[in-house]
């Protein structure tokens, strides 16, 4: 008997157990840490599903950046002693919620178990198109993201910009235009500074590497950008760099450069290749890398800005 299925079952049980703990924990911060552990485990599950691209995304975003976001939020809520969270629902509601959840989970399990075999797949079409619109990309996921479903990817980057603006807009009027605070609250500590000084440049290199290989191997603009984002956050936490002011033109340009360049190239597609968001096969790879470079920049700037939160410094109303 092979060991692999045992490993899979063990991992599956562990994921569900940690998820259950995250939901059941009494203590808010314990629950947050449970979620961070859960994010790490999910990266392993993704690798087992032959999805290293997603594993990398989950490791960088689900475990890493989300972890910092939630840990920061949990600690700040503790510090604010903002305990009033509304009454717990009555038992009747809980039973109903449990029944509904069990029903949904059961139906879903049933559907997943009875998915058709052979499974329908667009992999053959993607392989065929790899010679044309996604020319020169060895990583089919990158081809899907930047070429076949370019429209989704461009709009999703606009969603990121909107989220940043939405987060800024929650701040106080008096602070508008200033810099966000939470990442630079620490007193610079020798060990932290040293760690950041070594980690950030190495991490930045790895981020660029992962973006660069993403055309042909697992990785890509989002994963590379997310790692760069994490390294910028590390540098901010150690106060090697300060958070930028949200009024800064350069910051805003960087935030929208990804979708803006994507949109511009997409519009130009009608002149170059006869259709919006089409790339002439001769330059497809060069154009795609060009767009991706700006997407990396946008992601690397947007994620830290989202974690850093609204600008602070003005008076609370």
């Amino acid at each position, binding site marked *: 008997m*092979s*060991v*692999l299925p045992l*490993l899979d079952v*063990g*991992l599956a049980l*562990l994921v569900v*157990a940690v998820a259950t*703990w995250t939901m059941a*924990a009494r*203590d808010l*911060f*314990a629950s947050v*840490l*449970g979620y*961070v*552990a859960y994010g*790490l*485990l999910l*990266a*392993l599950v993704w*690798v*087992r599903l*032959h999805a*290293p691209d997603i*594993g*990398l995304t989950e*490791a*960088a975003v689900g*475990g*890493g*950046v989300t*972890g*910092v976001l939630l*840990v*920061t939020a949990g*600690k*700040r809520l*503790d*510090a604010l002693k903002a305990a009033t969270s509304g009454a717990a629902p009555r038992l009747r509601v809980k039973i109903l919620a449990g029944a509904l959840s069990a029903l949904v989970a059961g139906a879903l399990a049933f559907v997943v178990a009875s998915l058709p075999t052979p499974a329908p797949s667009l992999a053959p079409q993607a392989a065929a198109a790899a010679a044309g619109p996604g020319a020169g990309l060895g990583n089919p996921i990158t081809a899907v993201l930047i070429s076949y479903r370019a429209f989704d990817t461009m709009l999703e980057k606009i969603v990121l910009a909107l989220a940043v603006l939405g987060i800024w807009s929650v701040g106080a009027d008096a602070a508008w235009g200033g810099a966000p605070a939470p*990442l630079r*609250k*620490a*007193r610079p*500590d020798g060990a*932290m500074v040293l760690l950041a000084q070594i*980690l950030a440049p190495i*991490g930045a290199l*790895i981020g660029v590497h*992962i973006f660069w*290989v993403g055309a042909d*191997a*697992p990785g890509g603009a989002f*994963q590379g950008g997310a*790692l760069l984002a*994490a*390294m910028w956050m*590390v540098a901010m*936490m*150690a106060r090697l760099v300060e958070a930028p002011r949200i009024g800064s033109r350069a910051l805003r340009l960087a935030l929208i450069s990804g979708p803006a360049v994507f949109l511009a190239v997409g519009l130009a597609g009608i002149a170059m290749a006869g259709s919006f968001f089409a790339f002439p096969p001769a330059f497809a790879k060069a154009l795609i890398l060009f767009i991706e470079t700006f997407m990396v920049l946008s992601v690397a700037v947007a994620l830290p800005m989202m974690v850093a939160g609204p600008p602070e410094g003005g008076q609370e109303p």
Partner: protein
Amino acid sequence: MNEILLAAAGLIVAAVAVGLARILRGPADVDRLMAVQLLGTGGIAALLLTAYATAVPGVDDVALGLALLAAFATMAFLNHLDAGEGGAEL
């Protein structure tokens, strides 16, 4: 040989899973954090072992990403301790 690598991965996952009991028990947030960090390291080890046994391409980059962010949440947590926001609850 591959089976041995997988068995090693399984043992490590099992070990860190037991270690997760610290998240349950605490008592301090730091103890919970250490359990998460152990899980991170063990996860990387298990990931590498599985990758070498099953030959899924690109897994070493996932491991790189995880290693890069191994201390990420801990840094954020310590930041808030140092900022004096809740250091007493350690």
